[in-house]
């Protein structure tokens, strides 16, 4: 396993009066795609939000490239090279697709070569370049959300349930896009419920339950072990699509 780019040690977090994370220990290896699995309400999305500083850490530590980022404001965390695609996608629907991309290019300008690569990866981005992003379909919005995250080189992508509510053909396109990102050695922490999608892409896997990591290992091992899948995820592979 390569060195960890992101480490969570005993991280606890609350939302209002609710204790959501109870000492999460997680490592995201550099240059790999790690999948975070778990049932609804396990704390997966809160883990991503906590890494981004959107939820306050009450105990434990988050380290990025070995440096602590716990308690830092969200913009500072983002500028260190972490991009976050939330479950809601966070598209600015009143802005055009172009303006969404301009905003995501924090340095102030979009690299033409990188933009062309994104156009190849997600053709609808080019097609609807000057259209309001609010007019895009769900799949196109997801593509835009991911395109925004990679418009500039980032060291770590946090992506929350990108396949939620999407048609199988679009999920396939997204999987191809993630394959390309993987080939560029981008570290990715992907929260998913779709096990087939996760199995295709994931190199390492962590499973959450009740605000804790209850399993860590390689995705290949988990994919081969239906009994473990049933134990950790509550469903057999055939049912967990």
């Amino acid at each position, binding site marked *: 396993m390569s060195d960890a780019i992101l480490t969570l040690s005993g991280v606890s977090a609350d939302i209002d009066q609710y204790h959501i994370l109870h000492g999460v220990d997680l490592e995201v290896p550099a240059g790999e795609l790690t999948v975070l699995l778990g049932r609804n309400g396990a704390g997966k999305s809160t883990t991503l939000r906590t890494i*981004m500083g*959107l939820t306050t850490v009450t105990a434990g530590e988050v380290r990025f490239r070995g440096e602590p980022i716990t308690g830092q*404001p*969200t*913009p500072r965390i*983002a*500028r260190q090279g972490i991009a*976050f695609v*939330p479950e809601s996608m*966070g598209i*600015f*629907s*009143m*802005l055009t697709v172009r*303006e969404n991309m*301009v*905003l*995501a290019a*924090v340095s*102030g300008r979009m690299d033409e070569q990188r933009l062309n690569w994104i156009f190849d990866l997600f053709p609808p981005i080019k097609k609807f370049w000057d259209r309001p992003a609010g007019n895009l*379909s769900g799949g196109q919005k997801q593509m835009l959300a991911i395109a*925004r995250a990679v418009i500039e080189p980032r060291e770590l992508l946090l992506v929350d349930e990108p396949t939620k509510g999407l048609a199988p053909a679009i999920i396939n396109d997204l999987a191809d896009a993630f394959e390309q990102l993987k080939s560029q050695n981008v570290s990715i922490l992907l929260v998913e419920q779709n096990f087939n999608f996760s199995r295709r892409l994931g190199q390492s896997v962590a499973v959450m339950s009740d605000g804790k990591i209850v399993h860590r290992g390689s995705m290949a091992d988990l994919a081969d072990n239906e009994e473990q899948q049933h134990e950790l995820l509550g469903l057999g592979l055939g049912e967990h699509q």
Partner: protein
Amino acid sequence: MSALEKTLDNKSARRERPWKALGKGPRARFAAFREEKPHLFLLALMMLVPLFMINPTTWAVLTISGLAMGAMVFLMASGMTLTFGLMNVLNLAHGAFISLGAFAGATVLTVWLNGYSGDSSLLVNLVAILPALGFALAVAGLVGLLFERLVIKPVYGDHLKQILVTVGGSIILLELIQVIWGPNEIPVPRPDALRGAFIVSDAIPLIGGIALEKYRLIAVLLGLAVYGLMTWVIDRTRVGVLIRAGVEDREMVEVHGYRIRLLFLGVFVAGSALAGLGGAMWAMYREIITAHMGDELMISVIVVIILGGLGSIKGCFYGAILVGLINLYVGFLEPRLAAVATVGLMVGVLMWRPQGLIPVIKV
């Protein structure tokens, strides 16, 4: 575009634009114009209806005066619509910044550069007018900076507390104005070059021979210039993209690495500065100022930002023009109803379009 996309596009267009069902005739075109350009429809209606009740010459004078008043109200209201639209902050001390700008501008005109404003040359007058407007902008902006840090910052996200602390802050600012400038009304003689009127050439039909007050024309031009500048900043610049994005989803703006609080601060300072500029213009328009003049104007300001659509610069501009026009037209026809007409306009617009003429944020 694929056949499926075309079908989906058409379906969504019919859902969002029910008047498309009327076909392509004049009735459909009128319905489309009314629904897609409500600000222009209402403006046209507002300007045409009085023509049947007022003779054209008087109508032209009233229209120019209404536009001038609207332009000044826009200057004062634009800051508040930005503050409310982007920051979701109800700043009821906005009126105090209008007063502050008026007093700051008046100080330059009547005390520091008094000699220049009394001269009959426009160029010499400008030596007093431009610093007066600049000083009003700067003082209101600077006090806005302190106000945001001290009063607004602790109450972001809590409207009830915002109302309480900004009303309290407003009282303190008004008291400070009275401490510095005294409790009495202060006369602000308009610079000589801005007095008087242009006479429209007799060659122009309908309005030939009428007198158009110079100051009102200048107010219209300044209002248009500020509107153009703000529209350019909001629509064409990166800061504008950030502001529009911030109106929609603050958290995602931060996720992209931008410090939204810094953006908030900038917008608040700009909003306060614009209130100060509007106050200084109003001071020269009315030629007499009191500490409470801002509070008196707040009703118009609030009506404008509500009927224009919260957070919308364009809506604010058209809302201000509509308020200016209805004030003048109704004030001429039945003076006792002028104030009622403003509020009546807002009620009518909200019954027609509950989110205002050109909404930017969802309410």
